[in-house]
């Protein structure tokens, strides 16, 4: 679930605006005040992460929304070059496995099971290259300026831990520290070289995680999936790594101390001084041991045509020693204080310092956070726009990648309903909302039964039937209240075709889904608008977040009523946030409209659904004036 969203320098949102989100977050306000603009930033992030071409930092024109080019988006009169979008998400966890629900949809799961990813924050800034040949391209495909990702890990034993990674675009030419890493890359290592255009900063714990694999590693760059870190490019001093690897193998874990991924094609030569030292120590264990070890070492494979011993061969030789003697020998090597210095000095004496850039997975918490965001925004954010596909007798087949996607206009609703109509889903039945105080207890029924239940509650239809008509598409028929005959949607009011996509999309959504609705109340009778608020509340109980942009006073009033009618443990106070958006000349401003436990609006903003009030007063004033005039005649 999204818990915070920040926008800066995006269309009418000129000032940095950070809003807290609740399970049901409602935006209201005048036309062109900036409500949709705020939602567009969510859609922008979602369509970016859902986009197959991962090299695009942000996708301005994608599946959800077409935003044009960068200059259309940057606030007019702004002095800032970057557009900034930031957010925080709180993953839902499976109560049994404690796994993040969103990641269950994933093909793989990464993470330490005793840890729980408690929250993930991300902030991206993007801009264009106005100076060079890339100007036109970066208008459509803006460049990432920076990306910050942080993860809060809840560890029941060690307490909370926050990990972060900050990625900033930098100029390789002007950054002298980058040059040595650039030199370390071969000219054909294009990805590695490209990754160095970003500088990377990690928290100490994450760095320590990395240095468990590479003691000399410094984050030198990053390969991105859109704006998320996919692989860190570690700048590594291979000489130092070899010293450490030799020490690990001879005095520590044996070959287990050698990171196979990076040494599969690489031989490490053990300096002769080190071999002599080991043989001396073996002599202390026993002459037979020394002799056997020496013999074994002499019959090893040539290393690069020289007489040097490879680390792998040394490890094999050590393993050939009888286990009781080998343990004693390893203990002596581990206790030999001069060994580390000897290895270091002799390795460095025999070869030049060697640098490398190695792609490496981001540290555990960062990787988990990155994958969570990727999955959340690419699969669990759904959007239904304000306009619906016109009612049809038959809905033609339309290609859609996601079989649960009803489409931006609800155009796939018939197909989705038909495909999933027998699928058991968990939902709150409408009967929970009959009494003023809601007793929301989930039940499991088929999607079709759940849809019919809510259609009846909303009073727009008594039943709905979908049918696959093969190559012609899908047929959708409903029975409206009081009539036994089924009609297709062209013969009933538009209310059904307006509501049905909302119900199907929401009921079918998995927990920890964010559903974005723009003006769901369009074409609906005030009573249906009112009851639709109950449906949105029912979604929040199941962990499905609804973000609703609305002009419906009825919807808001129903939410106020539910808040007022709730008992002492009022679930709706924390489940609801309402923002009133205004557009003074200096840009959109977002003001939270606080609804208290009595359903009253504290500090009612001027212009917040007071139009009908003002009209009523004006009517009465005019009527009183007219009556006075008439009586005076």
């Amino acid at each position: 679930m999204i818990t915070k969203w920040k926008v800066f320098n995006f269309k009418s949102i000129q000032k940095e605006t950070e809003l807290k989100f609740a399970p049901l977050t409602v935006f209201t306000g005048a036309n062109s005040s900036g409500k949709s603009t705020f939602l567009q930033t969510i859609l922008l992030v979602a369509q970016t992460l859902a986009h197959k071409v991962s090299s695009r930092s942000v996708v301005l024109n994608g599946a959800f929304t077409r935003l044009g080019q960068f200059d259309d988006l940057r606030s007019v009169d702004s002095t800032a070059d970057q557009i900034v979008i930031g957010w925080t998400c709180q993953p839902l966890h499976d109560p049994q496995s404690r796994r993040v629900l969103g990641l269950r949809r994933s093909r793989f799961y990464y993470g330490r099971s005793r840890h729980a990813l408690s929250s993930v924050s991300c902030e991206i800034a993007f801009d264009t290259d106005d100076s060079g040949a890339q100007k036109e391209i970066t208008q459509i495909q803006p460049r990432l300026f920076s990306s910050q990702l942080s993860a809060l890990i809840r560890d029941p034993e060690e307490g909370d831990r926050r990990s972060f990674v900050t990625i900033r675009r930098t100029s390789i030419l002007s950054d002298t520290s980058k040059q040595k890493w650039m030199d370390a890359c071969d000219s054909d290592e294009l990805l590695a070289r490209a990754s160095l255009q970003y500088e990377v900063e990690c928290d100490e714990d994450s760095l320590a995680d990395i240095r468990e694999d590479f003691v000399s590693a410094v984050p030198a760059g990053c390969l991105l999936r859109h704006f998320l870190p996919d692989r860190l490019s570690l700048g590594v001093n291979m000489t130092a790594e070899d010293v450490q690897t030799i020490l690990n193998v001879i005095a520590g874990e044996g070959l287990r101390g050698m990171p196979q991924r990076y040494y599969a094609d690489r031989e490490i030569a053990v300096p002769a001084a080190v071999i002599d030292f080991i043989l001396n120590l073996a002599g202390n264990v026993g002459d037979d041991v020394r002799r056997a070890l020496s013999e074994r070492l002499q019959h090893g494979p040539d290393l690069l045509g020289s007489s040097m011993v490879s680390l792998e061969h040394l490890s094999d030789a050590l393993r050939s020693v009888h286990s009781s003697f080998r343990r004693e020998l390893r203990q002596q090597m581990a206790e030999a204080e001069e060994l580390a210095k000897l290895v270091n000095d002799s390795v460095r004496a025999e070869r030049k310092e060697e640098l490398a850039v190695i792609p490496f997975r981001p540290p555990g918490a960062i990787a988990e956070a990155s994958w969570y965001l990727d999955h959340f925004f690419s699969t669990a954010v759904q959007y239904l726009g304000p306009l619906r596909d016109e009612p049809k007798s038959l809905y033609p087949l339309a290609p859609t990648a996601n079989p649960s996607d009803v489409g931006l206009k609800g155009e796939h609703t018939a197909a989705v309903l038909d495909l999933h109509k027998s699928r058991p889903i968990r939902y709150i039945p409408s009967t929970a909302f009959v009494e003023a105080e809601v007793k929301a207890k989930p039940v499991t029924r088929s999607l079709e039964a759940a849809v019919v239940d809510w259609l009846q509650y909303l009073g727009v239809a008594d039943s709905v039937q979908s049918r696959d008509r093969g190559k012609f598409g899908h047929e959708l028929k409903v029975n409206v209240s009081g009539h036994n005959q089924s009609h297709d949607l062209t013969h009933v009011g538009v209310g059904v075709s307006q509501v049905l996509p909302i119900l199907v999309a929401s009921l079918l959504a998995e927990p920890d889904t964010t559903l974005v609705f723009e003006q769901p109340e369009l074409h609906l009778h005030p009573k249906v608008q009112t009851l639709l608020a109950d449906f949105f509340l029912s979604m929040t109980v199941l962990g499905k977040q609804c973000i609703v942009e609305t002009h419906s006073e009825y919807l808001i009033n129903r939410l106020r009523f539910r808040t007022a009618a709730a008992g002492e443990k009022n679930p709706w106070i924390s489940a609801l946030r309402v923002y009133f958006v205004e557009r003074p000349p200096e840009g959109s401003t977002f003001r939270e409209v606080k609804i208290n436990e009595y359903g009253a609006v504290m500090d009612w903003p001027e212009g917040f659904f007071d139009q009908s009030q003002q009209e009523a007063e004006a009517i009465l004033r005019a009527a009183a004036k007219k009556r006075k005039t008439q009586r005076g005649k």
Partner: protein
Amino acid sequence: MKMPSVTIDAGVLAAPPEYGTVDDAHRYVETLLDWRKLLDEPWVAIYMSEGASEALFADGLYPLRDNLKKLFAANGIVEYDVNTVARVVDTLLQLTPSFETYFRIRDVLAEKLSTNPDILRLSAGDKLQSDLARCVILIAILRLHCREPIRDHSLILRHAPKQVVNVRAIIHEIDHDRNDLSALPTHPEVFEGNVLICDDFRGLIECLDESSILVSSTDNVGLETAIRIALYKSRLGRGEDPDWNDVRGLRIGLSFFETVKMSCTDQASSFPAKVLRAIVETLDGENLAAVHALRTGPGGDDPQQMRGADGAMRRDIDYEFHLHYWQCDDGMVELATVVTHNDFTIPG
């Protein structure tokens, strides 16, 4: 059914003064909600003077949002917000039919008006006072002289010191379209009449005559209204704080209304009150000595008449008449018939 009716004085809608107390604020809102509720009730007609808005405007009491804002802020009221309360007032002002249109009487030219007790001085402004004075005289005239008496008609004020207010005035002229006001005393005779007043829902119910509503009822709505009023008054009499909507245990059988009407028509004027009392006692489980099972035969050991799991019961209304009802398995009471002494039948 002779539908009870009320006229709301415009002063009821004016916000209490800024220096009002928390109790004033709460009582104001609760009273508004009571009267707003009446707009939707099928058993009562609610009216307002057509000059109500004008009087409120003229006295600076409308729009009332500023006044309410100050009152709520001064008293730390968080339970209500100003706009929502103002919406209720707007609804009342906009949707309440005009008293003048319904009663076909528009204005009166009168002098030397006095009321006892003096309710006019309680008005919050001059225009409100003038509007109230006009309503008081017109209602008093209608109560006394028109052929379709509106005896139950109550005037709702912000504060009602007594239930009945005596009205005296010298009437010069009345602007009306009625044909039943010929006997009206005119100048220099003094008109004397009275009006019923109340200031809350409870007061309104106390003003109503449930027996006359029962007698004039033509369907179950009138019957149920009469029962509700009787039930409400009975509970009030027992010192309870009754809920108008709490008649959940009641179901009216298909023949009941017909038999009640027939018996009320044939009997003395006190009979409807007796029927209502019997119904109220049945619903509230009182005076159980007057109740026994309705049996299949004359013997005391004969089994009770049953309808599935529902048992037939007989309650004495007086020596001659009895109320037959089903004590249903689901806890409901289904009123079946009002019968004479020798009648032991009950419709299934």
